[in-house]
């Protein structure tokens, strides 16, 4: 077993977790290394990683815009008020 392997060996579940974190730039250096070492020998996780990256690209391309939380709260209150008015 190589030194890399000894230091960074993880199972598929953890490798996928590192991959998910990497999609949000939340993976530490160690986690990225763990993922890379795992991917070197695991075909299933290579597939998952490929798919996961594609999803990240699609979400970026979709340019979905967040709607402000304050605005959502305002809508909720308006709806509650109106709904109560109509149903009393």
């Amino acid at each position: 077993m190589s030194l890399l392997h000894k230091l960074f060996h993880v199972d598929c579940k953890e490798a996928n977790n590192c991959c998910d974190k990497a999609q949000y730039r939340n993976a530490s250096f160690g986690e990225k290394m763990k993922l890379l070492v795992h991917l070197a020998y695991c075909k299933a996780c290579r597939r998952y990683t490929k798919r996961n990256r594609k999803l990240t690209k699609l979400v970026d391309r979709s340019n979905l815009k967040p709607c402000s939380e304050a605005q959502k709260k305002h809508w909720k209150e308006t709806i509650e008020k109106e709904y109560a008015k109509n149903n009393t």
Partner: protein
Amino acid sequence: MAAHTLNPNKWVDRYSDYLFNYTIVRVNNREVANDIISETFLSALKSAKYFKGEASERTWLISILKRKIIDYYRRINSKKGKAEVHIDYSDEENQGEWLEERVADLSDRTAEDDMENNELGMAILECLDSINEKHAAIFKRKTIDGAETEVICNEFDITPSNLWVIIHRARTALAACLEKNWF
């Protein structure tokens, strides 16, 4: 028998991201979009008694929203002293179709790419509709809003490892749904 029912108290949680992203590419202004959506919700509440349950709640809200967007364009057009809205039907087949159905054409032609990407965005939100509601909400906070892990954990009272399990499930389900419906 009505297949669909209305739950106004859930509207914001369930559909506001969808309605907002639908509107923002068409009016290109946050405040205007927010106002149009407020009008949509109010108008929907008023006409809730006419909801027959034939369409899904979201489809029904979108149909009201489309009309509100058209009203908005009529209003700003008449302010400019151009009371008439000219819509040219592109071909024979489409003649006589309702103005409402052609609302997408109000946007700039050069913005076609934006529209296609917006459709992708809509497809993503539609897919999220079909997964666990809490998972979808957490995924949106993390992925679309870009909220920090800690913030989301506080909001939903979960641990970071819970969060990553939920994100993993949401991403897997979303990828499968998009592969089915988008590619």
